[in-house]
C-alpha cells in the first residue's frame, strides 16, 4: 500500500536555505513527507528563482526549472528577517521546529540572534544544520565559492582531464552542489535520529568543501595513495589506460562505456564471440596488458568491432557476456529510457504558472518512504496565510499590516 504521507510525516522543518545545496537538502526531507516551511525574502525570493533553465525560455520568478525541482512539496512563506517583527516570527517558528536548515553566510544566523546555542535553550531536541561553502570556522570561512571552485579545491579535479590541458570539472550543471545537499540531508537525518534516541539535538556544521573530500571515495582513495606511497594522481589520457577495455568507445551511432577491469577479461572474449583471445598471453592478465604494444594490438580489432554496431547492440552483447557496460546517453535518451519509464521513475506535477512538468522522482523509491509527487514548488509567499494565520494565529488584517510594514 502506498503511504501517501511519507516516512517523515510529522517532522517539522524550518527551511532558511537558498540557491542549490541547501534547498536540495530540504527538498529531500520534503519528498519523504517532512513538513517543510521555506522562508524567502519578500523581494524576489530565493535567488534560484532567477536561475535557468526557464520554462519555454521565459525568465520568470515562477518558471525556473531549477527552482521548481528544488522546492517540491514545501510550503513557502516570505519574511524579512532583518525587521524586528520578522525576527520575532522566525524565533517562534524555530521554537516549534524539529529541524532548522540554513545556508546563510557564516555569522548571519548569530547576527539575527538565531545561533544554535540560543535556539537550543528553548528547544533542546532541536537539530540545526548549517550549510556553507567552507564551514563555520577556519581561515576560509568567509570566502566565496562556486561549483567549479569547490570541486577544484575539494575533489579530484586536478586528476580529471587530459595531461596537456587544464583540469576539468564534471557535468554541465552543478553536480557537486547537489551531492553536498544530498549529504546534508543524510547529516540532518542522522542528527535527528540521534535526538529521537538520546533526547538531545545536534548542530551540524556542514562544509561543502569538506564534503567534497570526506564524502568522496575517489578523493579519499587518492589521498591514501599519497599517504601510503607519496603518489600524486596526475591527469591521464583515458585512451591509454594500462587495463582495457576501460572507458568510452565510439559506436556506429554514438558512444558506449565498456570496462573489463577487476579481472573480468574473459567477458570480453565472450562478448566479441572471440574465445581465442580469452587465454591469449598478451591480454589475459593485467601485467601483460600493460606491456608495450599490446593495447594497440587489441584496439586494432576492438575499435572496428564497436564501430560496426550501434551502442545498444554493443551493450546487449556486453551485458549478456557479463562485461560492465552501458551506452553514453544524452538527456533525451535518458528521459525516454524504457527501463526508467517502466519503473515509474519520472513524476509529473501540475504548477499553476509553469503548467504540468516532468521531474526526476524520489532517489529512494520505496513505497513506504516517499511521497515525492504531492505538490509543486510554492509560488512566492503562497502559504503566508496558512502559516501566519492558521499556525501562528495572526488575523488576515495583521497580514495586511505585515505586508505594509514590509515584513512579509
Amino acid at each position, binding site marked *: 500500500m502506498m503511504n501517501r504521507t511519507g516516512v517523515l510525516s510529522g517532522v517539522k522543518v524550518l527551511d532558511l536555505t537558498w540557491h542549490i545545496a541547501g534547498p536540495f537538502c530540504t527538498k529531500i526531507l520534503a519528498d519523504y513527507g517532512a513538513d517543510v516551511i521555506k522562508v524567502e525574502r519578500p523581494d524576489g525570493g530565493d535567488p534560484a528563482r532567477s*536561475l535557468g533553465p526557464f520554462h519555454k525560455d521565459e525568465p520568470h520568478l515562477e518558471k525556473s526549472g531549477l527552482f521548481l525541482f528544488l522546492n517540491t512539496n514545501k510550503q513557502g512563506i516570505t519574511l524579512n528577517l532583518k525587521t524586528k517583527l520578522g525576527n520575532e516570527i522566525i524565533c517562534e517558528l524555530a521554537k516549534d521546529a524539529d529541524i532548522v536548515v540554513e545556508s546563510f553566510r557564516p555569522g548571519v544566523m548569530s547576527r539575527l540572534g538565531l545561533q544554535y546555542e540560543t535556539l537550543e535553550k528553548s528547544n533542546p531536541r532541536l537539530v540545526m544544520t548549517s550549510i556553507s561553502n567552507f564551514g563555520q570556522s577556519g581561515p576560509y570561512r568567509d570566502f566565496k565559492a562556486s561549483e567549479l571552485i569547490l570541486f*577544484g579545491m575539494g575533489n579530484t579535479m586536478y586528476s580529471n*582531464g587530459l595531461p596537456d590541458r587544464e583540469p576539468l570539472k564534471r557535468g554541465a550543471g552543478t553536480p557537486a552542489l547537489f551531492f553536498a545537499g544530498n549529504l546534508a540531508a543524510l547529516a540532518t537525518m542522522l542528527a535527528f*535520529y*540521534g535526538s529521537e534516541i538520546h533526547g538531545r539535538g545536534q548542530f551540524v556544521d556542514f562544509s561543502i568543501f569538506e564534503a567534497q573530500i570526506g564524502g568522496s571515495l575517489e578523493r579519499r582513495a587518492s589521498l591514501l595513495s599519497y*599517504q601510503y606511497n607519496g603518489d600524486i594522481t596526475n591527469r591521464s589520457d583515458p585512451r591509454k589506460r594500462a587495463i582495457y577495455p576501460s572507458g*568510452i568507445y565510439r559506436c556506429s551511432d554514438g558512444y558506449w562505456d565498456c570496462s573489463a577491469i577487476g579481472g573480468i577479461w574473459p567477458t570480453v572474449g565472450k562478448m566479441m564471440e572471440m574465445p581465442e583471445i580469452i587465454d591469449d598471453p598478451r591480454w589475459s592478465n*593485467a601485467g601483460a596488458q600493460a606491456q608495450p604494444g599490446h593495447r594497440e594490438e587489441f584496439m586494432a580489432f576492438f575499435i572496428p568491432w564497436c564501430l560496426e554496431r550501434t551502442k545498444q547492440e554493443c551493450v546487449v552483447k556486453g551485458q549478456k557476456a557479463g562485461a560492465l557496460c*552501458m551506452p553514453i546517453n544524452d538527456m533525451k535518451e535518458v528521459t525516454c529510457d524504457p527501463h526508467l519509464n517502466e519503473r515509474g521513475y519520472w513524476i509529473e506535477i501540475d504548477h499553476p504558472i509553469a503548467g504540468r512538468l516532468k521531474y526526476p522522482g524520489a532517489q529512494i523509491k520505496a513505497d513506504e518512504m516517499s511521497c515525492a509527487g504531492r505538490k509543486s514548488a510554492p509560488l512566492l509567499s503562497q502559504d503566508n496565510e496558512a502559516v501566519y494565520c492558521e499556525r501562528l494565529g495572526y488575523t488576515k488584517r495583521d497580514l495586511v499590516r505585515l505586508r505594509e510594514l514590509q515584513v512579509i
Partner: protein
Amino acid sequence: MAEMTKLPLKGIRVTSLGVVWGGPYVGMQLADWGAEVIRVESTKHFQPLTRGMEFRPSLESFKNRAGLSVHLKQNHDPDTAHNTYNNFNCHSNNKLSMTVDLTKPKGMEIFRKLIKVSDVFVENNAPRVKEKLGITWNDLRDVNPKLIMVSLSSFGDSGPYKNYRCLGAQVEGFCGHNYITGYPDEELDTVSASYISDMAAGVNGALAVVMALHQRLKTGAGQYINLSQAEAFIPYLAQVVMDFTMNGRVTERIGNRSYHGAVQGCYRCRDVQGKQSCGNEVKDTWVTITIANDQEWQGFCRAIGNPEWTRDDRFQDSLSRLRNHDLLDKHIEEWTIGNDAYDLMYILQQHGVAAGPVMDEQDVYSDVHLRARGFFHELSHRFTGTHLYPGPAFQMPKACSKPSSPPVCLGEHNEYVYKELLGISNEEYAELEKEGHIGTDYALEEVKS
C-alpha cells in the same frame, strides 16, 4: 568545555556484505556516526575491486598502473596486500570484519545468527549472487522481523536492466553525466571515469537506513529498501534534465564554464619545482575563478591592478563578457600564469571574487583551513603504518566523530563476533577455524574470485 552528546547511531548494529564502493559507502557513513558495522568477508572468496584489483598482486603490477596506484609499495607483500589497498582503506575506518564461508550450510547458519542480532543489513551484490547464497529479503525477513535491509544495485530490482552489471562509470554514462562532461573541442572518449554515482547510491543507502530506523521507532517493524544507483544520481543533473523535460533541449558539454551565466575558468599558474609527483620534476598548478556579476568584475579588475585591457568595451557588462569569454580567458591566464595559485586565491577573495587553487593530494594535506578545522586524523594501522586519514564528510561539534580505529583488516574481529556476539564456544571456534570459515588471510589454494 561544552557537554558532549552520544553519536547518533550508538547502539545500532549493521551487518554489511558491501563490495566495491556503493555498499561500503553506506557502512562508512553509519560507522562514522556511531553504528557497529560488521563486514562479512570470506577467506576463500576474493571480490575484485574490494580488497584489491587482483588477488596477490605482484610488485610489477603496481608499478605498471599509473592512476590506479593502489597498495602500499614499500615493503610490498602479496600475502598481506589485501590489507593495504587504498580503495578499500579509504572507507573502512571504524568498521569491524569477520570471515565466514557463506557457500557452506554451516556458514549460512552463522550468518543467520548474525542477522538475528543485527538492526540493519546492507549489501550491493549482483541479484544472482544473493539468490544463490540465500540472502534475499525473503530469506531473511523471518529471521529477524525488526531487520532493515538495504540493497543497492545499478538499476534496481525491476525493469529491463535489473540484471545489468556496471560500475559507477557506466551508470553515469547511462544517466547522461558523461555526455555533458569534458572539453567541448575534444571527442567524448577523452572523458575520464567518474564515480560520483557510487557516492549517490551510498549517501541514499545510508539515508534510507536512518529513515527506516526512524520509522521502526513508530512501527516496531523492519523493512526492505531496494535502491537504484541511476535513480539516486539523476537528480544531480537537475538543470539539464529540466531543460529537456521543459524545453526539449539536449545540453552539450561546456568544459569548465558556468551553466548559470558567470564567467569562469581554470587558469594555469606558476609551475612548482621539485614536488613529489610520480617522477615528475615539475608540477603544473592551476587556479579556478568565478566572476558572477558586475560587482565581482569590478573587484577582479581592482585585484589585478586595473590593466588597460579591462577597460575594453567587450568586457563592460555580463553579457559582453560571456560573448567574449575566450578572449577574456586569455587575458586572465596572462595574469595567473606567473603566480602562485594560493596567492591568487587570497588576492581575489580579498576583493570579493570567488577563487581557489585546484588542489592535488599534497595541497589538501597542507591546507591551512582543513588543518585549522581538525579535518585529518592520525591513525596507526598494522600493515600500512601511521598516516593521516581524512575525517567524515561533515561535522557535529557536540558529538565529535573522529575515527576510533584504523581501516579494518580481514577477519580482525572474528573472536569478538563469534564468541561475544554469537556465543560460540572455544571448541566450536577452533573447529570453524579448521573448516576455513575463520581466518585473517586468504586460503591460498582455494580462493575464487
